[in-house]
């Protein structure tokens, strides 16, 4: 009887759930493999198919000056090197950035539903892009047009506004950030709606930006965005200790030696820079930044030292594959593909982690 009472009193101990933890090095190797496959497939498939062997040979010759016998035409080389490779690499860099930014914002805000766009970056970038479309001036600096510039600045301006406004008043900093982000985002969305209303024939252009795409990728734009995204992502990895401290809340993080206000500002700035650079070159692509860090956390646990780099790897592969799918399906917007892959996947994730998420 006593044993039964004991068992009834502690029903939890009857089903001890053990979160799975996989080996990070094996996962990193798998991620690198996936990245290589995505690269070769992304470059090889298309309206003109290029054999994987030729793809690898062209890459080897161009990147490492390998002496390979030419079995392909100059046109093939142009397709691989000038058209498809920059596009695949841009998709990878953007996927990497969005996944890192998502992991950063989820950890920083301690909110599993946070994504790179949560603090107004998306609306800010969208409004910036829409205004650029409406301004009848064409400027081009290093292959970057007004649209890229204003999207980038709009994203950063939105986050900066949210951050500044959130510091007014006596609310807890995290709650305040999230709510202010929502409010500012809504206001910017209203501005975007107005811009779209006024845009007339340019509506399609704004709409294309909102759905996201890599079809305008080029070496020049990649060269502009990649260093920023990669550098900021590396800096986030270097601050994994702070993200780990925040796991138990800001007060506990403070007691574990994290200078919370400073780290919050730095991580917010890095995450926002990455997001702004990503949305400037590709438009708004959802779900990668939300889902990838969750999948990685399910595999290796919440340690940011593993979550951030692995999210980067898998985010890059996923985005390259999503872009390939978007191309093969007749140039549909890549944001549609990531949503179609991401949303059901996310639902499954939520159901599997049954005690799930405290919001």
């Amino acid at each position, binding site marked *: 009887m006593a044993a039964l009472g004991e068992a009834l009193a502690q029903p*939890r101990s009857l089903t001890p*759930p053990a979160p799975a933890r996989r080996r990070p090095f094996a996962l990193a190797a798998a991620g690198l493999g996936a990245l290589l496959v995505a690269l070769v497939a992304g470059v090889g498939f298309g309206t003109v198919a290029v054999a994987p062997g030729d793809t690898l040979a062209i890459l080897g010759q161009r990147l490492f000056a390998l002496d390979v016998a030419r079995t392909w035409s100059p046109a093939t080389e142009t397709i691989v090197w000038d058209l498809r490779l920059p596009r695949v690499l841009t998709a990878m860099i953007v996927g990497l950035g969005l996944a890192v930014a998502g992991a950063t914002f*989820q950890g920083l805000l301690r909110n599993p539903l946070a994504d790179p766009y949560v603090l107004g970056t998306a609306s800010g970038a969208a409004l910036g892009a829409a205004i650029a479309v409406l301004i009848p001036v064409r400027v081009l600096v290093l292959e970057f047009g007004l649209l890229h510039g204003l999207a980038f600045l709009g994203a950063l301006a939105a986050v900066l506004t949210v951050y500044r406004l959130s510091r007014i008043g006596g609310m807890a900093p995290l709650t305040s950030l999230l709510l202010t982000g929502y409010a500012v985002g809504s206001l910017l969305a209203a501005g975007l709606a107005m811009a779209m209303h006024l845009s007339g024939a340019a509506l399609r252009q704004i709409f294309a930006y909102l759905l996201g795409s890599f079809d305008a990728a080029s070496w020049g734009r990649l060269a502009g965005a990649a260093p920023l995204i990669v550098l900021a992502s590396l800096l986030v990895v*270097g601050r994994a200790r702070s993200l*780990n401290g925040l*796991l138990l809340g800001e007060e506990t993080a403070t*007691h574990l030696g994290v200078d919370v206000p400073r780290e919050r500002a730095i991580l917010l700035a890095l995450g926002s820079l990455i997001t702004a650079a990503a949305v400037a070159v590709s438009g708004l692509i959802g779900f990668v930044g939300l889902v990838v860090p969750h999948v990685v956390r399910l595999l290796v646990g919440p340690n940011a030292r593993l979550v951030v780099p692995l999210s980067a790897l898998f985010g890059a592969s996923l985005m390259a594959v999503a872009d390939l799918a978007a191309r093969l399906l007749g140039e549909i917007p890549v944001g549609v593909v990531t949503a179609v892959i991401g949303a059901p996947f996310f639902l499954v994730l939520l159901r599997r982690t049954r005690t799930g998420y405290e919001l």
Partner: protein
Amino acid sequence: MIELRDVTVEYRGRRVLDGVDLSVARGERVALIGPNGAGKSTLLRTVTGVLRPSRGTATLAGEPLDRLDRTAVARRVAVVPQQASIPFATTVEEVVGLGRLPHEDPFRGPRPADRAAIAAAIDRVGVGHLIGRDARELSLGERQLVLIALAVAQGAPVVVLDEPTVHLDLRHQVETMELLVDLNERDGATILAVLHDLRLAAHFFPRLVLLDRGVAVADGTPAEVLSPERIRAVFGVDPAVVRLGA
């Protein structure tokens, strides 16, 4: 280990601590008691450098707190929070491992010495049977032990606790208290705990400090501090409600 001299703390324009003196020597075990709003948590937050006194000085292990950075404070004092919410599935071992953050190299992460300290803390607090479990699925009593193990892993000479027994049933309250006594007597940890339960405080702590409206009104053995007149004056209840054993 802890020295507060004439400490006054103001919080949003209100004076929460008013000229408090407190000296806790290495290896002491001190309970901080007092009614709600007396300033107990504020005092803990001052000792851990979260709040700065507007007047007076606070030193920790001989160093003025305002000259220590967060990591240096974290190596000197470990804080056990009342409860912690965790947004992602996290194993008990991972939670305890967070105690090593103040010692970790920011780039290389935990080293073998850190892993050894984590294993030792898990062993010391007796939560070895929980290590693979998701910390969010534990009972409140188990969670409290895990948070104490985290503080032990931190390896700081001072351990500070804010109402460690508040969510616990009687058995877990006593077990937590016994663990604190053991950490104090066997490992030499200096312990400062805010406690609401006067009976637990009197039974398990040789020294009590009574705060009332931001002032330390009594400091001494349980018998000295918890006189019937003082219980009536400070807590506003009939002293018979708190029938102390001794």
